[in-house]
């Protein structure tokens, strides 16, 4: 990125890859092709060769359409999935190969908020039980009074009345549940939050409440965010840097202001033009041809080739690598590199 390399890297992903096997077990791999029995394993290439760093104190937003691998990326970083290839470093320590016990202190440092607050809270646990559990797990030998104090303090900080602690999740609305989910993540004083579409299941007026809460937590606690979303207006508001994903690959990475003022990758341009604007009467919508191809058999070359207006022979043959642009953006596109317009 730009010259603010002084900010230390909290997370570093190196050549990160995740593939999901579609044919598990021997029998599923046996297929008949042209009258012959062959063994064939199909895989979904969810995340491909991603190099990305998250600096301390920033809010890195990952945007892309469904199936582009953004949630897989979040789960990889959180340690909920094991990468097929590549490394994840947390403040210089490689964490993707750690055993469960050795991973525990890192789990305390990074917490995750999920999309659907109706599914992410245990319906059979009261709010109090749900919030106390992580405190006990991560602070061995802590007294009951201390746990209760901690939980009450966090509940107040997210605007949930501590007297509601004995209630069950079904007694709360979606917005309140998402506050409780955020409170649960904050009880262990994390330094890094991974938020996977935290507001997309909520109504507009509630979205603003939750976003404000997350901004507040960022300022008060100095949190670093990895924010996964498909909503570009939220990105523009919340993110300090934006990573645009397409079909499991990183297309463009730039400061939020740079990306919105001057998008370079053809996919980023199309994505930005597609957002319905409130005031603008005549949107210049860039129509993409076709739809996102399946991530099972990735094309050779650029993943965006099938929908790109500027694709040529080189794009079909050679996968573009991220190149640093004069304004600090990283763009993986042959057309941008060659100045094709």
């Amino acid at each position, binding site marked *: 990125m730009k010259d603010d390399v002084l900010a230390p890297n909290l997370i570093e992903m190196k050549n990160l890859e995740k593939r999901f096997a579609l044919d598990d077990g021997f029998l599923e791999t046996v297929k008949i092709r042209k009258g012959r029995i062959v063994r064939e394993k199909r895989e979904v290439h969810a995340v491909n060769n991603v190099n990305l760093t998250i600096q301390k104190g920033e809010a890195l937003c990952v945007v892309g359409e469904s199936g582009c691998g953004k949630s897989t990326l979040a789960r990889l970083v959180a340690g909920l999935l094991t990468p097929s290839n590549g490394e994840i470093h947390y403040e210089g320590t490689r964490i993707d190969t750690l055993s469960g016990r050795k991973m525990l202190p890192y789990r305390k440092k990074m917490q995750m908020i999920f999309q659907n607050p109706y599914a992410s809270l245990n319906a059979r646990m009261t709010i109090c039980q749900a919030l106390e559990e992580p405190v006990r797990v991560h602070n061995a030998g802590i007294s009951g009074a201390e746990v209760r104090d901690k939980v009450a303090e966090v509940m107040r900080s997210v605007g949930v009345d501590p007297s509601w602690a004995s209630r069950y999740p079904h007694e709360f609305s979606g917005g309140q549940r998402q506050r409780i989910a955020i409170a649960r993540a904050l009880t262990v004083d994390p330094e890094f939050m991974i938020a996977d579409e935290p507001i997309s299941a909520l109504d507009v*007026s509630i979205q603003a409440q939750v976003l404000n809460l997350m901004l507040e937590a960022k300022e008060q606690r100095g949190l670093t965010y990895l924010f996964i979303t498909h909503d570009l207006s939220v990105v523009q508001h919340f993110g300090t840097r934006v990573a645009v994903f397409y079909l499991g690959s990183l297309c463009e990475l730039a400061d939020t202001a740079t990306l919105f003022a001057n998008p370079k990758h053809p996919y980023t341009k199309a994505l930005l033009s597609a957002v319905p604007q409130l005031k603008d009467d005549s949107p210049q*919508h860039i129509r993409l041809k076709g739809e996102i191809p399946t991530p099972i058999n990735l094309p050779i070359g650029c993943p965006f080739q099938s929908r790109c207006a500027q694709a040529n022979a080189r794009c079909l043959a050679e996968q573009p690598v991220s190149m640093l642009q004069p304004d600090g953006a990283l763009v993986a596109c042959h057309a941008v590199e060659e100045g094709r317009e």
Partner: protein
Amino acid sequence: MSLLSVRDLVVKFAMRKQTITALNQISFELARGERLGIVGESGAGKSITGFSILNLISQPGYIASGNILFEGQDMATMSAADLRTIRGNRIAMIFQDPMVTLNPVLTIGQQMVETLQAHRNLSRADAEKIAIIKLREVYIPAPEDRLKQYPHELSGGMRQRIIIAIALLLDPQLIIADEPTTALDVTIQADIMELLLDLCQSNKVSLILITHDLGVVSQMTEKTLVMYAGKIIEAGPTREIVNDPQHPYTQGLIKALPQQTAPGERLSQIPGNMPPLSDVPDGCAFHPRCEYATDLCRSTTPEIEDLGRVKVACHEVQRLNQRATPKEDSA
């Protein structure tokens, strides 16, 4: 004469303990070729409004009073046989989730031919010809092959196009689209909306677009209704409502959008939640969340009043306007 005229519509749901009023005195008019947006949060009654136009409210819900005049005929009191001649034929509906709207065990062709043959006396071959023409209108590549395919073989965007094609099969006068793109990605949403807008304009079809997305409404419609807890609280030309909202709730909704605030700044938020329809407060339903609420708001329900440019249901709107007048003069 307007194409659709809804007058004082009241829809209730008889639950075990109480009767819930889901729609409370809804009135609006829709002219031929006009595009209307209905916005509001979940539970505001937007979808119920869409369903009740087709008289699709089922037990325990019922239309308690009011008229739904479509081309002068009252849909609220019509017989089931007469309703069938209108549903899918002169009024078509597009639902939110393209994954569940199509029948998974019938091919696209079977579903399209069935729709056509239900309303017109057509041979199978003729019906297929019409189906292919309609699929081409919604930019489906190789429509002849699609007819033989099943819904699971197609992507979400493609399915929603096919649903639009089915809606257009019988050249309806009105399309009701209930959150048609909420389940789709932004780039696909933009394509579908552009397509829907083109088709409505070129075929002079009226559209009722039900959505929670003010951006979409702003791009697509000429008139907007804002709903809150089963009532219309603001109605008028879309431009007026987006550029100069009058009701404190509409103002709050628009201000809460991230694009209205500088990056990193706190978003303006409406405190609290919309009340459940089983527990709507006395007076103005919005008063517990409203910063301008007075004793009058807490005791008396405001009627919707015509302010010239827009209609608003708010006791305080006149006073708020007077305060805002100097600003408007300079602008």
